[in-house]
């Protein structure tokens, strides 16, 4: 058996792959959080609930309307995104001018409401959601067996992350968004509808969470608690990457996923701790985060 660092290479690569898949979800979720925080200065506590909401939209579409995975991949982010925009318009937009703590408390309350609704109807047990036929089975890579769906998760998340990065850093709409963070009054004076931009931004961030949710549905079980289990790690990812930094969130998401996978190989006891240890070190050395500009 081939060995690497005194460990069978299968185990090593297997854990690395698990890390990469977890990292894909960290990247997509922290990206959404970074987009929202970067422009709205709101720590979106409801992000985990929106991720869970996305997974449930997929599950409900399949169970009640017979709509399968591929349409759901578009519909779930759309539903969650529109839900996010309504919430922003009705409530969140009223909290920008007061202490940032209130945005956080509001989104926490919102998360409780969303989770409460799904817990009321579905309890805390998970609902199975199977991967589409096209992505079933697996391929033998010679050194390990790769389920096709897991490979698809990595590819899809890379595409979405890259797309969002291009949207914000390279397009005209993105430049308006970035300008609105720097100086909303001035951008408004140039005739750009800043409140609408903020609504769209929250919608985009929520839609990213929804997309991650439907993507995660076949990997993990669809359960009302799936979001709250993940969200704290994602917060740590955002801190390490630098709050509001788009690229930072993406890179750090994958990196910390891999770091977690590697720790599982070498020192399993610390695997759920390693992200926070890295976070603590980064906070002490560079409080603005690896990719952040200022604290």
């Amino acid at each position, binding site marked *: 058996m081939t060995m690497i660092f005194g460990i069978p290479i299968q185990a090593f690569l297997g854990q690395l792959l698990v890390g990469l898949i977890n990292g894909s979800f960290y990247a997509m979720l922290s990206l959404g959080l970074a987009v929202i925080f970067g422009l709205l200065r709101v720590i979106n506590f409801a992000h985990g609930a929106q991720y869970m909401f996305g997974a449930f939209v997929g599950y409900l579409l399949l169970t009640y309307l017979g709509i399968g995975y591929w349409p759901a991949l578009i519909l779930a982010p759309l539903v969650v995104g529109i839900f996010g925009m309504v919430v922003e318009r009705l409530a969140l937009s*009223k909290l920008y*001018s007061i202490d*940032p703590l209130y945005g956080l*408390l509001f989104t926490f*309350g919102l998360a*409780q409401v969303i989770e*409460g609704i799904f817990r009321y109807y579905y309890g805390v047990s998970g609902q199975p959601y199977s991967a589409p036929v096209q992505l079933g089975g697996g391929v033998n890579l010679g050194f390990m067996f790769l389920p096709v769906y897991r490979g698809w998760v990595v590819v899809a998340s890379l595409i979405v992350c890259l797309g969002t990065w291009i949207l914000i850093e390279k397009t005209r709409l993105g430049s308006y968004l970035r300008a609105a963070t720097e100086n*909303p009054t001035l951008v408004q004076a140039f005739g750009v509808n800043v409140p609408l931009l903020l609504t769209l931004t929250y919608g985009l961030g929520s839609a990213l969470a929804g997309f991650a949710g439907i993507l995660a549905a076949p990997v993990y079980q669809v359960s009302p608690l799936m979001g709250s289990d993940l969200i704290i790690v994602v917060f740590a990812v*955002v801190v390490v990457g630098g709050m509001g930094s788009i690229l930072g969130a993406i890179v750090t998401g994958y990196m910390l996923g891999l770091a977690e996978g590697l720790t599982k190989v070498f020192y399993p006891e610390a695997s759920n701790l390693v992200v*926070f240890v890295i976070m603590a070190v980064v906070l002490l050395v560079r409080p603005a985060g690896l990719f952040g500009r200022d604290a």
Partner: protein
Amino acid sequence: MKALVSILLVVAVAVLAAVPWFGSDVLVQFGINALLLAVLAQGWNIIGGYTGYASFGNSVFYGLGSYGVAIAMVQWELPFAVGMIFGVVLAVAFAFLLGLPVLRLKGHYFAIATLALAQVMIAIVSNIGIAGQNIGLVLPPLNNDPLFYELSLILLVAATATVFWLTRIRFGFGLIAIRENEEGAAVMGVNTTLYKVLAFALSGVFSALAGGIHAYWITFLDPASAFDISLNVKMIIMAVFGGPGTVLGPVLGAFVLSGVSEVLSSEVTSAAGLFFGLVVVVAVIFMPRGLADLMRRFRTSGWRYFAENLRAHRI
């Protein structure tokens, strides 16, 4: 006016103290919970309300207090009081060790860093043998709810008195100065680092004591429930709902929200979290400055108060 308030307070405390004699068992149990939550909200008020550092790490103090009592009583067979002291020592040590680096951060960073601390504590305590790892510890039972009730009430009175005292001494003014303008405070000669760490430790002391009482009362604790982050959010919501940076606001907020949450969970058990969330959402939007502000301004504005809040916070 002042004399009237003091008399009312003394009467309120006396009535609360008498609850175990005329109230039902359920009421006493609800009372213990509400009083302990009020202590937590009041403790958070010191660092979050007065100093302006919205800590999400106060549940760590609570957890350390619980574990202090549990380890002392179960592993070392020491009396409860020694356990309480041990818990407080743990909390103060934590406040100094981690408070120093973490309190250098501001705003969002401080919130998230402290949030992650609680998560780290779960992982660490789950690996410590003396703390029962992730199985937890079972304490010797003591079926004396009235005792726990009176202890909680004494703790709440002590916490509130401390906060009241803070509002009239130099140290308290220093904290408020830090909240309003930290650089300014430093220029005026406030040792901001020392003040912040002391405020963090002080809020930790009360949280730890509350955790200790709760652990002995419930007689069981495990890492996930001891360092529960939603407990931390709860104490913030209660303090903010009542009015952060006021002496009685957090206590009032804790009582009102505990009552609401109790009624909800007895009426609609499975949807209690949902309605609690709704209460929070509505409260944050319509009365962001808390009950204390509502009571001050409702007299002049009437029902328009809510509409004014809505309009005031538009961009």
